[in-house]
């Protein structure tokens, strides 16, 4: 047991767990076909097998939310995955050779990529390859790389001056070995926090892109698009906006809490302080 369970970790874990569970279950079962249009069920009130009612197309809101969870996770996992897989090694490399040309090059390219925010990339990519979930994910992922690289670099710089790394270097260990044995484990908690923040941001970015029409293609359910579609009914049937809005908010909240909780749980620095206190 490395740390203590905390409330944030618990709540975050439960919220994220619900999203993951909904997404997994949706592969095998949803109460109704989430994309089946049925004029007879148009704007059906909740109840009678339609837990949260139906939208203007007569599609079951609950089923849509379940499959929407899948979209949300796709976007988050792929975007954060791209960012972490590219950004972390770059940041570490830059951090381990702080005065070298490599570091300089990485950070300059990083700054350049950083200058292309997710939306700009998504619009540009969407214009070339067509808007869709994939282009949105790639755009969000690439735009998040600099954040990961920066955080990884900053954390690596700190780790590189610690005694154990100095000792390892003095002992003649090679850089890759130091990177894996000492740097990566010690910047892990920082990266987890970054991943959680980025995951949450990715979910929000997907929603924003869907709002602008650059996100997930219809009729694939996505919480962002559900929100966008419900706009014209905001005044007469607010529940259509309420549920996807709530789903986005709770999922983002869940990932943020989970990240915070994990940091408290894993971070040796915090552990020391707690032991002292």
């Amino acid at each position, binding site marked *: 047991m490395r740390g203590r369970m905390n409330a944030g970790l618990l709540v975050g874990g439960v919220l994220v767990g619900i999203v993951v569970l909904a997404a997994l279950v949706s592969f095998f079962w949803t109460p109704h076909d989430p994309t089946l249009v049925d004029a007879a069920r148009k704007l059906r009130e909740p109840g009678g097998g339609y837990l949260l009612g139906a939208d203007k197309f007569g599609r079951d809101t609950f089923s849509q939310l379940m499959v929407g969870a899948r979209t949300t996770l796709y976007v988050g996992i792929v975007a954060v995955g791209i960012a972490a897989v590219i950004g972390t090694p770059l940041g570490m490399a830059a951090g381990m050779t702080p005065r070298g040309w490599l570091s300089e090059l990485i950070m300059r390219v990083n700054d350049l990529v950083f200058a292309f925010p997710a939306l*700009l990339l998504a619009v540009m990519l969407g214009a*070339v390859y067509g808007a869709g979930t994939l282009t949105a994910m790639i755009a969000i992922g690439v735009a998040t790389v600099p954040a990961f690289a920066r955080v990884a670099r900053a954390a690596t710089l700190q780790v590189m001056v610690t005694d154990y790394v100095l000792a390892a270097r003095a002992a003649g260990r090679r850089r890759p070995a130091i990177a894996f044995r000492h740097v990566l484990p010690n910047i892990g908690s920082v990266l987890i926090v970054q991943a959680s923040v980025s995951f949450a941001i990715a979910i929000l970015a997907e929603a924003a892109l869907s709002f602008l029409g650059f996100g997930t293609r219809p009729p694939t359910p996505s919480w962002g698009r559900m929100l966008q579609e419900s706009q014209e009914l905001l005044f007469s049937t607010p529940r259509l906006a309420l549920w996807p809005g709530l789903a986005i908010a709770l999922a983002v*909240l869940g990932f943020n809490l989970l990240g915070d909780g994990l940091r408290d749980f894993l971070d040796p620095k915090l552990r020391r302080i707690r032991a002292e206190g």
Partner: protein
Amino acid sequence: MTLYLVKRLAVLLASTAVAAVVVFAFMALLPGDPAEIALGVNATPEAVAELRRQFGTDRAPVAQFLDWAGGLLQGDFGTSYVTSAPIGPQIGDRLGVTAVLVLGGMILAVVIAVPLGTFAAVHHRNALGAVISAASQLGIAIPAFLAGILLVFVFAVQAQALPSGGYVPISENPAEWLRSLLLPWLSLGLVQGAVLTRYVRSAVLDVMREDYLRTARAKGRGSTGALWRHGLRNASIPVVTVLGLQLATLLIGAVVVERVFVVPGLGDLLLNGVAQRDLLLVQGVVMVLVAAVLLINFVVDVAYHLLDPRLR
């Protein structure tokens, strides 16, 4: 420091130049010939060829790039293929609007986040701190456009207190200008403020655990005094970095908020340009946005160096 400044400035110029190449190259990838697009689907081939000559798009890409980049240096963004209006002044107008929008949102975010985040850090063990933390978590979790829609619903549609959208130039009517920007600022500022509160809180929490704060107390300062005198400047270093990162996020947020509140800013110009295939315009807007972010980056780096003597 001077050396650093010179070096950093050189990097800024070099990255801007590279960015210009990237932007130009990317635009070249966009499907569609500007001349064909300008003339529409029913244009005659001769007319297209003629227009191509007029636009200069029949020349080699390198020549086109040099021409464009050369114009940029003189503040000339070219003339739109679609609207036949000069692009520079349009971007200038829109940039002003977006800058006001983003800066206002940012200032609001800072005004919200610094006191709240600090307070939440100082009181991180009691209920009030927890309430602020929870509120900021919720604030982060709400998409900016949803916040905007809700603000419109409450303040414009229900209360009829503020306009639901639109933009009035300050030269036309300063009071209306302010009124028209209040809701957009709020929807950017509240969401970004929530994000920033979290960072401020964690930065302050970090410095609160620093030994030099204990030293300051050992000198005879109270914990609040020590935090003010020694903590906040140290905490501002990570926060400044986050602010820089956030400005880019705000540019994203601004595009969406411009759509919700019908504000004629750069994002709106960009989306219009993309929809109308006004390539030169899109190229110009993207270039300006990218250059703006690079400049922000530069300013953040310099600020970082000014704040932290260890980097000098």
